[in-house]
């Protein structure tokens, strides 16, 4: 014990260690960051996670494939639909089921709506992290409109559980097209307001420009995907590189920046909302006719083998890796969750910045804690 005390260097003695979390307003959940400070400057950040580790991967080993879907809702609850889709795509790939166009288009539309609502909530909470409380309410107000669309078609607001292997649970609601069109019209008018309130603001520029720079090499090496990675110039959009569902039929551009600081991670997400609206507008008028689900066997058994499917959630690349031994339960399911990987870069990019910047950087990485813990 005494020797340990002696080993502490003079530099370490001056460190001021604070615990951010598990209950802290800016960690958006039960993330605990042990932050070593010198004055107000961050020396190191050690994430301590596992406060809501539910063992989803273990649970998946004892349930059937359709039952896995409702668990994936609860990983990244903001892109619940995209997580569902990832599992369904893996199962369909394994069974080599041909999916009709209508299902593909429905899934794409829903994914893009999910992406917009996720980015809206991110914008809301990011504004709040920086102290602009009004952003929070504007973001939630607009998100509510998408959740209403979800509720009408899927029955759930956030945890939709809308996908099932071979299609979707229900057909689109008759009001769906009109409501989505109304929303796009509304949101095209509202989104510039977001820019006026936060993006153009001089205080926001000061707070975000040059903060938490992540170079392209580091982004690839740390595996930072999603808008956070693309802000550093890492072209990692799975929708472009390995199109699934109806993404090969729509035109959209991958938002890429090279600066990789908090400001450009922010701008990348705002731009993605515009792109998502473009994708929706291309598809909403041409939803093909057809069945909304392919008839599957009552008990789905995957042939023996290993299957890997990547999808682009609102936060990055979600990988679903299923090892099947031919039973109705998977042998092993692994989710490559984007948040978990993005969190690992936090220590690297927040060194040397102030504690207020740590909050901004954490906000700009857009972490969802249940997805980290799984």
């Amino acid at each position, binding site marked *: 014990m005494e020797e340990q005390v002696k080993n502490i260097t003079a530099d370490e003695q001056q460190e001021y260690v604070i615990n951010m979390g598990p209950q802290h307003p800016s960690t958006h959940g039960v993330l605990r960051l042990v932050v070593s400070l010198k004055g107000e400057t961050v020396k190191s950040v050690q994430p301590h996670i596992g406060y809501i580790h539910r063992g989803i991967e273990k649970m998946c080993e004892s*349930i059937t494939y359709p039952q896995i879907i409702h668990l994936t809702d609860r990983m990244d609850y903001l892109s619940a639909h995209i997580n569902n889709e990832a599992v369904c795509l893996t199962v369909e790939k394994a069974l080599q089921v041909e999916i009709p166009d209508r299902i593909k288009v429905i899934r794409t539309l829903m994914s893009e709506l999910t992406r917009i609502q996720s980015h809206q909530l991110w914008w809301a909470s990011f504004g709040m992290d920086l102290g602009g409380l*009004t952003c929070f309410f504007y973001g939630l107000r607009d998100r509510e409109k998408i959740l209403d669309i979800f509720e009408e078609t899927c*029955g*759930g607001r956030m945890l939709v*559980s809308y996908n099932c292997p071979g299609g979707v649970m229900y057909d689109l609601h008759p009001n769906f097209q009109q409501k989505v069109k109304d929303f796009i019209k509304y949101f095209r008018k509202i989104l510039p*307001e977001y820019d006026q309130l936060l993006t153009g*603001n001089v205080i926001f520029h000061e707070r975000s420009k040059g903060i938490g720079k992540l170079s392209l090499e580091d982004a690839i090496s740390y595996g930072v995907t999603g808008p956070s990675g693309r802000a550093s110039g890492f072209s990692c959009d799975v929708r472009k590189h390995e199109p699934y569902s109806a993404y090969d039929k729509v035109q959209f551009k991958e938002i890429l920046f090279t600066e990789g600081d908090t400001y450009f991670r922010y701008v990348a997400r705002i731009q993605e909302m515009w792109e998502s609206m473009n994708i929706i507008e291309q598809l909403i008028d041409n939803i093909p006719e057809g069945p909304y689900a392919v008839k599957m066997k009552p008990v789905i058994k995957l042939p023996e083998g290993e299957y890997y499917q990547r999808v682009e959630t609102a936060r990055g690349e979600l990988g679903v890796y299923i090892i099947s031994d031919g039973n109705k339960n998977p042998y092993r399911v692994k989710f490559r969750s984007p948040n978990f990987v993005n969190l690992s870069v936090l220590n690297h990019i927040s060194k040397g910045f102030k504690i207020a910047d740590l909050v901004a950087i954490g906000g700009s990485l857009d972490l969802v804690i249940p997805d980290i813990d799984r």
Partner: protein
Amino acid sequence: MRSIINYLKEIFFGVKSLLVGMKVTGSYFFRPSTIVTQKYPNNRKDLVMFDRFKGEVIMPHNEKNEHKCTGCGICEINCPNGSIEIISKTITTEDGKKKKAIDKHIYHLGMCTFCALCVKTCPSNALAFGQKFEHAVFNRALLTKTLNKPGSQLMKGVE
């Protein structure tokens, strides 16, 4: 000289961007018609949920107190959380045959994750989703519900 001009420019554009932001909040302040708040418990009467809303699992009964549940147990197998338990009994039908029928269809609302697998897979469409969403109770035992009403019977023609 240039640095002074830049300095003044910086101040000018900074203040301008702040005023643009204030315009947004100010315009909402003077337009109370844009308020989106719902006065929730007061608007219970005209609060209508969407018909697909997943409030709770119910078993629709007709006016003769009949339901469609045959007690096959597919919902119980499909439920990922074990929130459905079926207790069946053996009854004698009118023509003297012994038949399995449902005694109690127990539903644990507290464990339900609303994945819709039970409703979706039910072969006789006996289950549906109810619109009720105010589930708060003081005792956890109250969340365990029996879905078939007392004295109810299987609807004619449903196998």
